[in-house]
């Protein structure tokens, strides 16, 4: 959750910026500006006698580029495994494109122009076409082509990559290509800070895998810092502070220290249940995107996985993974958590998530996404349903549908699930015939018909991020209105009460997997509203557990009752903050998930 910490000291000359928290942790240090500016390409005419030397220079530059890329490729495979490493494949293949390089060599000979100019000009033709493609995949490849072109040009100018940094630093850049992120990680990098990119960008993915804090999507940040400017990045909350005052610096050093200390202490909680002192049992589970997180999920003591975002399987992929590939992957998840339960959410694509289709929509959040896509792409849907079922034979898998907005969609999805079951019966493949099915409540319409949906499912999971956006009509990635995105808006609180009450009345489990579930400020309120299951980022598990284990359900109900009578978000937040400060003075406040 991106919000300004109310108790954070600030001074006039420091600059506070908001970004997207992409990899957790706090980094404090000098900035290192990583320029992705285009190499300067001069056009120069050659004497015929210079041509052979020029061609030789180019051959050497290509050879060096190839060596660099192979090194990166091997490093990526080693650090991240074969699959992730493949993102560098396209560049290597283009380096071996003899048609392209024959043309470039021929042009240098006949036009008598320098190699740098011809390389730029020739590759730019393709780059321009790819960058303007309406196919998302091709536009991504345009970045690869650009990166490769710059690599060759840099090698022509015989410049070395910034490799060995003198001091440890926070890398500040407009954008980081996957190769840059990796290369830089070999140095003493404290954190990554970029102007573009989202949670699913290559930078974010790699930073998490490398355990380096990152904040992405901070607009214009490069123009605000110089080489060495002191910066703080908060990879938990997405805060970025440039030129921090002494006071702010101390605040974050303290926060970093507290986090470390707190995490050490919380480790003791790992094997204890998430139960209130007066005996209310809560399911405290984890949101998971990558298999690499599983170890951490165990360390943090989760009761299971409350949300596995299966669409992360599509990252960097050209096609939907096959049924077999998916089945293996889901089985790995299920087995590693067994006997704990895992909830697999079917592909939630569209909206701000990666697009597996080339359709451009004027309003993707109100467009083709979630279950809507799957009900149109039924082959993909059936492959996934069969794969999930195949992983369910040990009966610890549940299935969940995203973005349901009417009951017909749920029924249709269930009909496909039944069909998938019949396929497996025919093929004599074992699965859990009574696999539990749930829906996400993230569209206000679904919230209003909670009771109807609840009659036809086993569990509900509230997706607060989208629900709040839709309910308040606020696009939280739109800077102009993002402050109106209020998770403690009284309308949100009252709406949540309604969903939880109606769902429980029908006898189903009501959980929450949105960011709000992992915001410590919301825990007591949600507990008091009667939420059965909290699904949170692994990072936040111990903290939320500690709050649950120290708060009587009776007290939480009283808090919820009072909050329901308040009329502004400010009132709600200050009431909750005061309550938390009194009871949990040592919990670092306000980072959310």
């Amino acid at each position, binding site marked *: 959750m991106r919000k300004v910490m109310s108790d954070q000291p600030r001074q006039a000359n420091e600059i506070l910026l908001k970004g997207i928290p992409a990899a957790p942790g706090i980094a404090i240090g000098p900035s290192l500006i990583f320029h992705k500016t285009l190499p300067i390409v001069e056009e120069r005419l050659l004497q015929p006698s210079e041509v052979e030397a020029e061609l030789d220079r180019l051959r050497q530059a290509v050879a060096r580029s190839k060596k660099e890329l192979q090194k990166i490729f091997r490093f990526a495979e080693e650090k991240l495994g074969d699959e992730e490493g493949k993102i560098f494949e396209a560049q290597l293949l283009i380096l071996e*494109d003899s048609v392209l390089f024959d043309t470039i060599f021929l042009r240098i000979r006949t036009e008598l122009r320098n190699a740098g100019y011809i390389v730029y000009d020739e590759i730019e033709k*393709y780059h321009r*076409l790819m960058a303007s493609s309406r196919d998302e995949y091709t536009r991504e490849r345009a970045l690869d082509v650009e990166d490769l072109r710059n690599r060759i040009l840099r090698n022509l100018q015989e410049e070395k990559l910034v490799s060995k940094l003198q001091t440890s630093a926070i890398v500040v850049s407009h954008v980081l290509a996957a190769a840059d992120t990796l290369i830089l990680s070999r140095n003493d990098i404290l954190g990554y800070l970029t102007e573009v990119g989202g949670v699913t960008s290559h930078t974010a993915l790699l930073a998490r895998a490398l355990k380096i804090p990152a904040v992405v999507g901070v607009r214009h940040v490069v123009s605000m810092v110089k080489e060495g400017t002191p910066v703080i990045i908060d990879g938990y909350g997405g805060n970025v502070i440039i030129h921090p005052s002494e006071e702010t610096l101390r605040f974050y050093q303290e926060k970093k220290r507290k986090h470390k200390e707190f995490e050490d202490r919380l480790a003791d909680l790992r094997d204890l249940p998430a139960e209130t002192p007066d005996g209310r049992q809560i399911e405290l589970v984890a949101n998971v995107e990558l298999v690499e997180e599983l170890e951490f999920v165990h360390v943090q003591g989760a009761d299971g996985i409350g949300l596995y975002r299966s669409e992360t399987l599509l990252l960097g992929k050209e*096609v*939907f993974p096959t049924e077999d590939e998916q089945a293996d992957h889901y089985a790995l998840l299920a087995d590693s958590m067994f006997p704990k339960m895992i909830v697999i959410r079917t592909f939630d694509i569209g909206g701000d998530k990666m697009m597996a289709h080339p359709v451009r929509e004027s309003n993707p959040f109100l467009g083709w996404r979630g279950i809507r896509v799957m009900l149109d792409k039924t082959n993909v849907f059936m492959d996934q349903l069969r794969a999930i079922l195949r992983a369910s034979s040990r009966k610890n898998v549940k299935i969940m549908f995203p973005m349901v907005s009417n009951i017909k969609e749920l029924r249709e999805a269930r009909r496909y699930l039944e069909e998938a079951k019949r396929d497996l019966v025919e093929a004599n493949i074992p699965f859990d015939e009574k696999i539990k099915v749930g829906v996400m409540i993230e569209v206000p319409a679904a919230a209003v018909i909670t009771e109807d949906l609840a009659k036809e499912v086993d569990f509900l999971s509230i997706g607060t991020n989208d629900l709040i956006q839709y309910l308040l009509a606020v696009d939280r990635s739109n800077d102009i209105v993002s402050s109106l995105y209020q998770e403690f808006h009284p309308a949100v609180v009252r709406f949540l009460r309604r969903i939880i009450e109606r769902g429980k009345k029908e006898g189903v489990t009501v959980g929450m997997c949105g960011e709000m579930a992992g915001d410590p400020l919301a825990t007591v309120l949600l507990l008091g509203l009667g939420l059965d299951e909290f699904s949170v980022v692994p990072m936040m598990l111990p903290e939320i557990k500690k709050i649950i284990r120290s708060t009587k359900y009776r007290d939480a109900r009283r808090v919820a009752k009072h909050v329901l009578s308040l009329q502004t978000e400010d009132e709600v937040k200050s009431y909750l903050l005061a309550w938390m400060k009194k009871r949990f003075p040592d919990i670092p406040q306000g980072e959310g998930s």
Partner: protein
Amino acid sequence: MIEREVTIKNRAGLHTRPAATLVKLAAQFKSDFFINKDGFEINGKSIIGVMTLAAEQGAEMILRFSGEDENDAMAAVVELFERGFDEQ
């Protein structure tokens, strides 16, 4: 010179992997090979060119071959399209 119209059958379209397969196959023949999609023509032996086509499933294109082994080249390439680039 001979030509043939084909449709992309595989789900990925002419993305990196299928493009690489196509280029490698075409390189085994002496004939020139060009692909024309929506009036835009690229050299079918160039991976960067094929990637530029951004050809997705269902896209139609004209394959053009010219050279001494043009018949064999066309037969092999058309078959690769028919097989959906051996994509699973």
